[in-house]
């Protein structure tokens, strides 16, 4: 029991500290003093009986939801809005007419919900997303989120002979699996790669290549046409180039190339495939194929240059269509280009795809309505809810087959669903930035150096290996494996 107790501070020290700070009346620690304003002295969370225990189950209510328990839903109101969740809430209300549903569309997730966690009274469903999302690893480490295995084992809404887990795309739950347990449900499936304008390519007779040497030849042609082949936003998102780099390495060396990195295996960063992939990216820099000034642009500025036709190819995830809506000129027709094969001897086919999943929904363990939270997620994973989401947002969900074959009038969405289908089970992703935040910071710095030409491939990999080694050596950091 660690109730905060201010008396543990020696009275003299505290008084003199307060007196001096008070006298000068300055707040040199505004962030901390603000955030801790209500942090201490909160009520203690009940850690005994779990409210997650299931009630009576039936075919219509396989998760044993208390039919009259109120359900509080918090949805991050970002690029996808929060309207889609109202559709899902209506379905819930239909199944459980006695339940009161409170819908909240918010942006500052941590600011609004951190106090609820501290007080031991979090809501049932949270879309933990956005710039101010709560660190999932921390919540998991504290035991504050529900293990979703009951949901995944439950029958799916559309076909009770299939479990919910059976209806999800491959790799959908990789990012939220901690030591074998799925702790969050990412709802949006994201495909990563190089993006280009279909109309620009058609006008110039360019084809998206399937080999890296083909891409190099193409980049030379683009440059000759007076356009920068590549661009990136060095100020805020140089790490957007990491997905292409890893994709090249994984296609060459197989999925273990990236799982070794995540598992902090000795020398994983300096493996042969990583070296070749880093050299391939470094060569783009050396050839002068990065749009000049990219190092001093935000990703928004870089993307704006890209849709204005100053650069031809931009690395990103499939959120880019929604992000650039309104700025992208009509007829730009952005499409996803899957990373080409680095060599003829690549282990994975060229269709292999870096995929991620975002909009991570959690059901807080201390919520008063854990079973209702799980049921809400089950509803979200139904074909009708998922298709409705994609239609509204032009983003694919983790639900297999939902909205497939449709493009809702969007070249980007069409190319993404095509790439996902073509990839099949050959999908991969890295997890180290979310497991080890210090590595996320180091990655941004070091790949920024690589792309600006301040370091070469070997230097980049050496620095990243050193960061990984430091994490390995630090016993205070909780380690994860996959």
């Amino acid at each position: 029991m660690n109730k905060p107790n201010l008396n543990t501070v020696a009275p003299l020290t505290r008084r003199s500290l307060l007196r001096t700070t008070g006298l000068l009346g300055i707040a040199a620690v505004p962030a901390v003093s603000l955030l801790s304003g209500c942090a201490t002295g909160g009520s203690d969370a009940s850690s005994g009986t779990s409210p997650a225990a299931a009630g009576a189950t039936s075919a219509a209510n396989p998760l044993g939801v208390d039919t009259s328990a109120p359900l509080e839903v918090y949805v991050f109101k970002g690029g996808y809005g929060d309207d889609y969740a109202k559709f899902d809430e209506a379905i819930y209300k239909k199944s459980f007419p006695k339940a009161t549903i409170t819908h909240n569309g918010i942006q500052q997730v941590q600011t609004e919900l951190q106090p609820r966690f501290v007080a031991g009274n979090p809501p049932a469903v949270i879309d933990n997303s956005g710039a101010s999302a709560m660190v999932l690893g921390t919540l998991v480490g504290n035991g504050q989120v529900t293990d979703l295995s009951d949901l995944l084992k439950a029958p799916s809404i559309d076909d009770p002979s299939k479990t919910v887990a059976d209806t999800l795309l491959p790799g959908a739950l990789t990012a939220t699996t901690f030591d074998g347990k799925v702790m969050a449900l990412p709802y949006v499936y994201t495909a990563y790669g190089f993006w280009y304008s279909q109309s620009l390519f058609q006008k110039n007779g360019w084809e998206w290549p399937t080999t890296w040497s083909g891409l190099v030849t193409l980049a030379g042609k683009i440059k000759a046409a007076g356009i920068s082949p590549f661009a990136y936003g060095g100020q805020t998102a140089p790490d957007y180039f990491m997905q292409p780099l890893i994709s090249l390495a994984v296609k060459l060396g197989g999925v273990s190339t990236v799982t070794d990195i995540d598992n902090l295996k000795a020398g994983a960063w300096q493996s042969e495939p990583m070296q070749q992939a880093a050299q391939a990216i470094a060569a783009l820099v050396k050839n002068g194929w990065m749009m000049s000034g990219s190092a001093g642009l935000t990703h928004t500025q870089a993307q704006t240059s890209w849709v204005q036709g100053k650069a031809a190819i931009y690395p990103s995830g499939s959120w880019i269509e929604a992000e650039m809506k309104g700025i992208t000129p009509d007829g730009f027709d952005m499409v996803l280009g899957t990373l080409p094969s680095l060599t003829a001897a690549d282990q994975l086919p060229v269709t292999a795809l870096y995929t991620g999943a975002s909009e991570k929904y959690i059901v807080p363990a201390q919520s008063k309505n854990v079973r209702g939270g799980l049921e809400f997620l089950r509803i979200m994973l139904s074909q009708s809810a998922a298709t409705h989401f994609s239609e509204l947002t032009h983003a694919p969900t983790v639900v297999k087959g939902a909205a497939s074959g449709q493009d809702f009038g969007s070249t980007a969405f069409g190319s993404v669903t095509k790439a996902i289908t073509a990839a099949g089970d050959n999908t991969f992703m890295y997890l180290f930035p979310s497991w080890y935040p210090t590595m996320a910071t180091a990655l941004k710095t070091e790949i920024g150096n690589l792309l600006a030409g301040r370091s070469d491939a070997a230097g980049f990999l050496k620095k990243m290996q050193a960061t990984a080694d430091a994490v390995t050596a630090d016993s205070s950091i909780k380690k994860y494996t996959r």
Partner: protein
Amino acid sequence: MGHGKYRIITLFLAAPLTLYGVFVLSPFAQAFYISLTSWTGFTAAQPFVGLANYRKLASDPGFWTALEHNALLLVAVPLVTIALGLFFASTLNVGASAGTVKGVRGAGPYQKLFFLPHILPAVITAVLWQFLYNPQLGPINSALDAVGLGSLKATWLGDPAVALWSLAAIMVWTGVGFYVVLFSAAMQSIPKDIYEAADLDGSSRAQAMWRITLPLLRETVQVAWIYLGIAALDAFALFEVLLPDGGPDNSTNVVAQYLYQAAFQNGEFGYASAIGVVLCLLTLLMAAATFGLSRRETIEF
């Protein structure tokens, strides 16, 4: 009578003191307590770890790099801002040609113009400079090109050699206007006959500045230095908006950002509080040192 007076004083002071205690002192105390725990930010329990966070801080290269950047700002920003502030203020107040003691023509509008940047919120300032510093389309590089100084063009926020100074320049730009007004007010309180006497004795403008204005403005400059020092030790809003990840090659990370990263990216609220407490102590130290080093007898006039 005496009792009644104290009762009224107590009554009137109770409310503000309570508010001050709840909203200012108690958060400080809590931050200090949290710095002695390994709190992650989400639990009711806050495991006590003693001084472990402070020990970790002492050997954390990320913290020292950030502190180094604050130290550079602490020297450069007040120095340049005060120098420019004094220059503009004296131009506006005593800058007219010899024989008269008044400002250059059109001083009034200038003063308002100078003050303008100061009333912009930090985030707006950041967005504005984001545009100005755009290496491709930004007006700064375009202007350099236009006047034939293309060789001076830079990737202002993307090059580790210039990024910190690009940000420092924004801080100076924001600050100068306020200090022009502050110094102007102080200069106007200096009796004109002192300048007239100096003029008769044949002193130059520069001499009058060094021998008369500066000594009589010493206390105002001291206050300015402390305010600018606090701004240089914080610098959070501007830096976080423009270069949220510590800048190119980690060349612009400052302590307040490092604190933010520890709390909100790494989930180490205990450690972040320790950084905050150290930052607070450093700010107090800086203020005390400024007062101590520049203590001299006040000149009455």
